[in-house]
């Protein structure tokens, strides 16, 4: 039996359902936008339903949501040292949004919005721009001095300034790349295992298809970890912007 490996990556293809343009903006309805909105609605519905009848002694659903919130609140306050409390709503929103996008991709036939670099890149650039705005608001334009580290002899400055500048610019790129790469790699691995499983003779099929079950469990864990990492790093960048230099 020949192997049709195109099935392993075909689910990353962006399909445009309706071409829409608003001036120079391309607001076409594609599978990315549809599944992003779906993820948002699912997240809102789940959180609302779990909190429909809040009790002092919580039920299972309420306990789950409260644990999730408590976890993010603790991490935010631990990583943004001074004004962590103010950022809890933002961080919880980012966390649940990314988690929703990651998890919705695990439903058979669904599309993973976070497997598109455009989606993760937009999120990362948004956070990064906000961190720069906070920096400028707090420290004025003096933050550019951070690119020339203290105690460096002037002769080394032409070497240090570009290095510091690149390491600063690398932040949003790592943030976007990590989420995108993890989601894409996980789904590709899942696709490869499934294609191999279908191509194997019937008596050996249990092996690759059994592994897809393990891989899905791993994907579930990665969906949580990646959303968590994104939030933690956003906290670190915002904390860095708030701190005195």
């Amino acid at each position: 039996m020949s192997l049709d490996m195109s099935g392993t990556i075909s689910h990353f293809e962006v399909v445009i359902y309706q071409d829409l343009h608003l001036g120079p903006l391309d607001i076409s309805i594609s599978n990315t936008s549809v599944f992003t909105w779906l993820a948002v609605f699912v997240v809102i519905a789940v959180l609302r339903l779990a909190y429909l009848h809040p009790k002092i002694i919580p039920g299972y659903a309420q306990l789950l949501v409260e644990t999730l919130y408590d976890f993010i609140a603790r991490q935010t306050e631990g990583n943004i040292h001074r004004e962590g409390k103010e950022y809890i709503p933002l961080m919880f929103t980012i966390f649940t949004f990314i988690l929703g996008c990651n998890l919705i991709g695990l439903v058979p036939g669904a599309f993973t919005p976070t497997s598109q670099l455009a989606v993760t890149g937009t999120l990362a650039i948004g956070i990064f721009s906000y961190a720069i705005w906070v920096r400028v608001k707090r420290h004025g334009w003096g933050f550019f001095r951070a690119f020339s580290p203290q105690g460096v002899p002037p002769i080394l400055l032409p070497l240090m300034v570009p290095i510091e500048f690149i390491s600063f610019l690398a932040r949003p790129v790592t943030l976007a790349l990590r989420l995108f790469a993890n989601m894409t790699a996980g789904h590709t691995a899942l696709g490869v295992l499934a294609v191999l499983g279908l191509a194997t003779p019937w008596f050996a099929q249990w092996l690759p298809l059994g592994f897809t079950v393990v891989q899905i469990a791993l994907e579930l864990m990665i969906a949580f970890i990646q959303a968590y990492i994104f939030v933690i790093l956003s906290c670190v960048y915002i904390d860095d912007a708030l701190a005195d230099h």
Partner: protein
Amino acid sequence: MPSLKQDKQLHGHQWGLRVGTEIVASTVIGLTMGYFIDQWLHTRPIFLIIFAFFGLAAGFLNLYHLMVIDMQKSSEDDSS
């Protein structure tokens, strides 16, 4: 508050996942900057090579910063 075992495990995950992309991203940014400067000044491949090294150095610098922050944190945890 003493750190829990789960917290330490999560911390390990966080570290491992962060370190991997750090060098790749910095090098890519360095290369991109070098490529465009070369295109602008028609000096290919001088700036591409120079900025590739800058990018690599930036990646290692980021790793160094990460390590310093991490060591400070763990020493704070130990002393409290």
